[in-house]
């Protein structure tokens, strides 16, 4: 068994080389935002979708566009607006006068990388259409069902500033995103570099170095990353602590949490930690990996009570408390 892990470690060391190449390519076009890029890779390798929250102008579109270019994958961007219809997203049946029959016109969702920009600007029916496609990985138009191409990664963005004219995502829908990543402004030095690049018009471009099949293959290896029972217990302890804080000596949180992480949270945490271990070129998951992804996995899965909101307690505070209280194996 020990040999298995050694072999797996070696295999991962070799197979995960492309991660560094992707990073290098991404660094060519994006200044800073390493955290976002790393989370994009986790989503890509663990077959999950990402909800991104950050103010406009933080290179969200550029990041996913560059990633798709590096992987030589199909990219589409959908700007969610209040008048958007599900058909604008998934496609519709169009009557052809030439052939005198209805033809399927596929929507922008038929791509490997989909950027759903400002997802909360569209009403629930459009959001549901997207989230259903994300979950099922197939779309039905008329009588026909179409499988979505693999890899399929949706990166949805939310603008945290504006609340007027938005349709916040329901909790059940948000749960379908594996990670919710909060991105912040670049550092001062990074911003100076962005400024110079824009003034001098010195924009580098990415080179395609991978094929979508490479990602699908890597996903298989990621699933092989060893997750010990102790780590499984650690994951379930963290998720259970968000549901039943009193049982973990977190009495003060009991009145702050309306609902805790769902079973999807446990699954997502396990998959994301495996992907993180892969990125770190390791064949096994350690508690550090769990900690690294815990915030992104849990922050959109914990419901706050009015009491918590009144006391300015955020989900970040709750996750921190939970991580500081749950014993590390």
């Amino acid at each position, binding site marked *: *068994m*020990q040999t*298995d*892990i050694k072999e797996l*470690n070696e295999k991962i060391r070799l197979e995960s080389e492309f991660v560094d190449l992707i990073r290098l390519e991404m660094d060519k076009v994006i200044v800073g935002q390493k955290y976002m890029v790393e989370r994009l890779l986790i989503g890509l390798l663990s077959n999950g979708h990402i909800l991104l929250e950050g103010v406009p102008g933080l290179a969200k579109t550029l990041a996913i566009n560059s990633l798709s270019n590096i992987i030589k994958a199909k990219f589409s961007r959908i700007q969610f607006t209040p008048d958007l219809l599900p058909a604008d997203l998934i496609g519709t049946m169009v009557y052809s006068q030439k052939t005198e029959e209805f033809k399927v016109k596929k929507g922008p969702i038929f791509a490997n990388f989909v950027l759903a920009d400002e997802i909360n600007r569209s009403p629930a029916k459009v959001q549901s259409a997207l989230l259903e496609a994300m979950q099922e990985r197939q779309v039905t138009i008329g009588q026909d069902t179409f499988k979505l191409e693999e890899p399929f990664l949706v990166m949805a963005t939310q603008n945290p500033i504006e609340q007027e004219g938005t349709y916040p995502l329901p909790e059940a829908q948000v749960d379908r995103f594996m990670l919710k990543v909060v991105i912040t402004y670049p550092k001062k030095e990074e911003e100076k570099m962005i400024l110079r690049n824009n003034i001098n018009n010195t924009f580098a471009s990415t080179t395609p170095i991978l094929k979508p099949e490479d990602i699908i293959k890597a996903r298989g290896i990621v699933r092989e990353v*060893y997750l*010990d029972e*102790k*780590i499984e217990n650690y994951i379930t302890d963290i998720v259970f602590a968000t549901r039943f804080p009193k049982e973990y000596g977190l009495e003060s949180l009991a009145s702050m949490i309306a609902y805790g992480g769902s079973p999807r949270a446990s699954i997502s945490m396990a998959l994301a930690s495996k992907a993180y271990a892969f990125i770190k070129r390791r*064949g*096994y*998951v*350690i*508690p*550090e990996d769990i*900690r690294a992804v815990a915030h992104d996995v849990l922050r959109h899965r914990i419901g706050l009570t009015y009491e918590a909101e009144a006391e300015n307690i955020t989900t970040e505070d709750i996750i921190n408390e939970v*991580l*500081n*209280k*749950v*014993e*590390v*194996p």
Partner: protein
Amino acid sequence: MLLEKMKKIIVSLFILLPLCVVAQDLPYASSRLDTSEIIIGEQVKLTVEIKAHDEVFLWNPFPTELCEGVEVVKQLSIDTLIENGTTLYRQELFVTAFDTGFYIIPPIDFPYHKAGDTTVAMTSAPALFLTVNTITVDTAQAFRDIKGLKEVPVTFKEVLLTAYPWAILAAVLVGLYFLGRYLYKRYKNKQPIFELPKKPKLPAHIIAFDALDKLKEKKLWQSDRVKDYYSELTDIVDQYIEDRFEVSAVEMTTDEILSGLANHSIPPKDMEKLTATLQSADLVKFAKSNPLPLENDNAWNFIYDFVKDTKLEHSVVEETKENADIQDNTTNKDTQS
């Protein structure tokens, strides 16, 4: 004339009778009044004494009236005094009369029997005379109105028992409610109903050494339980770090523990040993690694050395404890102020 003679004889008899009793063997009873003359309603103390050897007396309570018109207001308990082989029983009564006149308090009988003999004998205290006088009215003075009823202050007990019995019941019920709530809360939180005083905690290194010895005795890795061995070893060192350096290592990952200890002045060689042990423990715990027997022994030795080299010396432990106490007191004072 004859009546006068008879009176003298009776008086003489009453005077001589006690002398006869005195002359008798034990037991004998005597009685006396503090004064033989009182004002109507005034109380006088009547003392009854019995001198005896080992006789057993059958004590009966005194009647409420010693004779018609003389009432017993209060009777104190029997006082016993043993002296020179004899026992002296003394009881004091307070008597009064509410009518004027001359009263003869009849002899008071005390039944007894000797120890080991059930035959009841009797000894009697002699009769007593009591004269009750009325108050002399000074007719020369002017008439005064009859005084009204005297107001007696109402006590708290009377108020509670007579006026507000429901208040007592309500207070008891409220008390029971809060007691029940307290007990339920503690039960629900799985806390003991009464908390026993905590035992003083041993210094961190003593706990760690003790746990390390026990771990060695278990021979876990020798019985193919390497994972359990490293789990326990890291638990011991985590707990030691938490107690010794106040770094909450139990809830930290290896990297976090090592960076948490970076600010403490730990000798580099010990830090290296700790790093090596924690990292190999992670491999065993999470990556199915199976180190060599020598490595297992080394891991134990590294932790033992780490504890030994970083432990607080006794005097320092005491000093730290004292400082903590002083800080506690200061904090308490601050809180109070």
